[in-house]
């Protein structure tokens, strides 16, 4: 199970606060929590296949991208979004500016940048290219060449 940062809630796309639980807490109290519209924080080492049958009971999912070189979050986002069609938001936290394009195309629906990137132009990095060479969870705005 993951070594997760201690955040307890996050704002959804309607700016409402949603309570968050860790991956471990979710499994320890799944019967109770699945009725409470909570979100889950998933760390890079958490096995997302364990929640694939419970996605209807989860309000939103938060993926942690803090470790710049750890790419597991991109596969987690792809599986949740594209393969298991999670209907809620997938929020990437501790996001790095230079990786936004990868996160968004993998299926992350919104993100919270690390404070160190404040003041830099996100659009430059979120939409760095005009074409894409492969199918992905989200290729909107890109000319497909594959």
């Amino acid at each position: 199970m993951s070594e997760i940062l201690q955040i307890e809630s996050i704002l959804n796309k309607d700016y409402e606060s949603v309570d968050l639980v860790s991956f471990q807490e979710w499994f320890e109290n799944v019967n109770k929590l699945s009725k409470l519209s909570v979100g889950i924080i998933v760390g890079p080492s958490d096995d997302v296949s364990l929640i694939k049958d419970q996605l209807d009971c989860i309000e939103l999912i938060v993926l942690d991208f803090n470790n710049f070189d750890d790419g597991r979050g991109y596969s987690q986002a792809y599986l949740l979004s594209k393969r298991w069609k999670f209907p809620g938001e997938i929020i990437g936290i501790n996001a790095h500016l230079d990786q936004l394009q990868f996160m968004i195309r993998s299926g992350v629906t919104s993100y919270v940048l690390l404070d160190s990137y404040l003041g830099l132009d996100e659009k430059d990095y979120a939409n760095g290219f005009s074409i894409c060479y492969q199918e992905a969870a989200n290729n909107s705005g890109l000319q497909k060449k594959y």
Partner: protein
Amino acid sequence: MYQYSPEDSNFLVERVDQFEKQLKRHLAGDLDDAKFKSLRLRNGLYMELHAHMLRVAIPYGTLSSTQLRSLASVADKYDRGFGHFTTRQNIQFNWIELPEIANLLRELSDAGLHAIQTSGKATRNITADPLSGLTEGEIEDARPYCELIRRWFNLHPEFSWLPGKFKIAINGAKLDETALRIHDLGLRLVRNNQGQLGFSVFVGGGLGAAAMIAAETASFVEVEDILSYLESTMRIYNLKGRRDHQKKLRIKFLVRELGADEFSRLVNEDWQQTKNDPNLKLNLVELEQLKKDFALPIKSLNLESFEEKVDFNYSIWKKNNVRRHKIDGFSIVNISLTKLGAAPGDATSEQMRILADLAEKYSASELRTTKRQTIVFPYVRKDQVYDLWQSLEKYGLASPHQGTLAQIVACPGRDYCDLAKAVSIPIATRVQERFNDMKRLLDIGDLNINISGCENSCAHHHVADIGLLGMQKNGEEYYQITLAGETLHETVIGKKLGPSVSGKIIVDAVETIVNVYLKNRLDQERFTDVFKRIGIAPFKEKVYE
């Protein structure tokens, strides 16, 4: 010859623009060293012992004469007039100034060249047989497949931050010039019983401190399904690969820890979810277009009246450097860049321009690069081979070393590389000096010596007839010897001979090994065949006596 479309060229420019912004932030102190390192490596840029090194991709080893001139220009303008052809169909420039990198990359992009993913923990340059399309018995030219797979994994959103680097080779020929089973992933073009074309897939090969041969994870994947199969392989690696131990990052460690059967099972389980997704099928229309783009630019010639020149030096060069072409009237010419004292694979900008001129005159403006760090002219008319040789001779490029012991593969070693434990190039020079008699070289025949300066094994010493691995012992340089590795007919990791040998006497040890081989050779037996027959003991006995 295949060229990038305007959209592809624009993509290269966009990539340079993005990297330039990242570089500016780094130089302004707004992007820390660790993150910048991760980003610069994905653009082929290393920090070496003395300066920055840039690795530029030569996809599937195919270059146009125009591209080679562009590389020569970069060598003059941004380096010290040199480029270094590597064992994986890249070219490296060793003296790059950081602030100039964006302009350099823009110049390359004008020629359809780039350094994208030539390093870093992502899919690297995809290599192919340098003789693709040229030899008899080939299943198919692998290059159109290389190009489609290269594109698919170009800035792939899910697989650009893998646990470790990921090298792919694709072979469509009978012999394996790509060494695909020492790659993270190797694809062999095959036909099944129904005559359908597909791939055998091998995963988990690699050299380094723990050399491993890739295991076959699928005996036949249809061409159309290869992208989804590769994605499933990378997904299992991305999610389950070791990230906790710097020396166990490569996929070979995951395959070893899980076992090849379990790894294949996991990949298959994932693949069943995507195999039928029409968006993940290889684009067969585009494939057909690429096959036309890569079609050979020559037609068979009737040269019955042509008479070969009689010239002793020419005939020696021809024996070692010229190969039969599948198209009547043409030859394949291999050009060795080997020079005493220079790093194997090094070429001056002047040599690059000469080769570009000669390729235009004699080889339909096309060149190939090989893992033995040589240059191939793929389309030389048989009646022009002599003229080409004369021109090469004039410019000092007619070394007849190809296919002899003197065509040594060596990494830059401790003279240039930050990671190396021992020198490589001076050892190569000393071996070449010891074996400088052409009669003796011809008698010995095709025998590979590869020299790596450290366990990273950039010179592929594990798969050479004689492999030397540099190391340090009490401040002195030593070399571990491995024997009878190979990849061409089958993949075999060389056997360690015994305790490492001091650099002072390593050339004596090499000569002793060659002498044991010659003494025991029957007819034209290859080194590996002699080794299989007599075992390691006779070599050991003589080297350590």
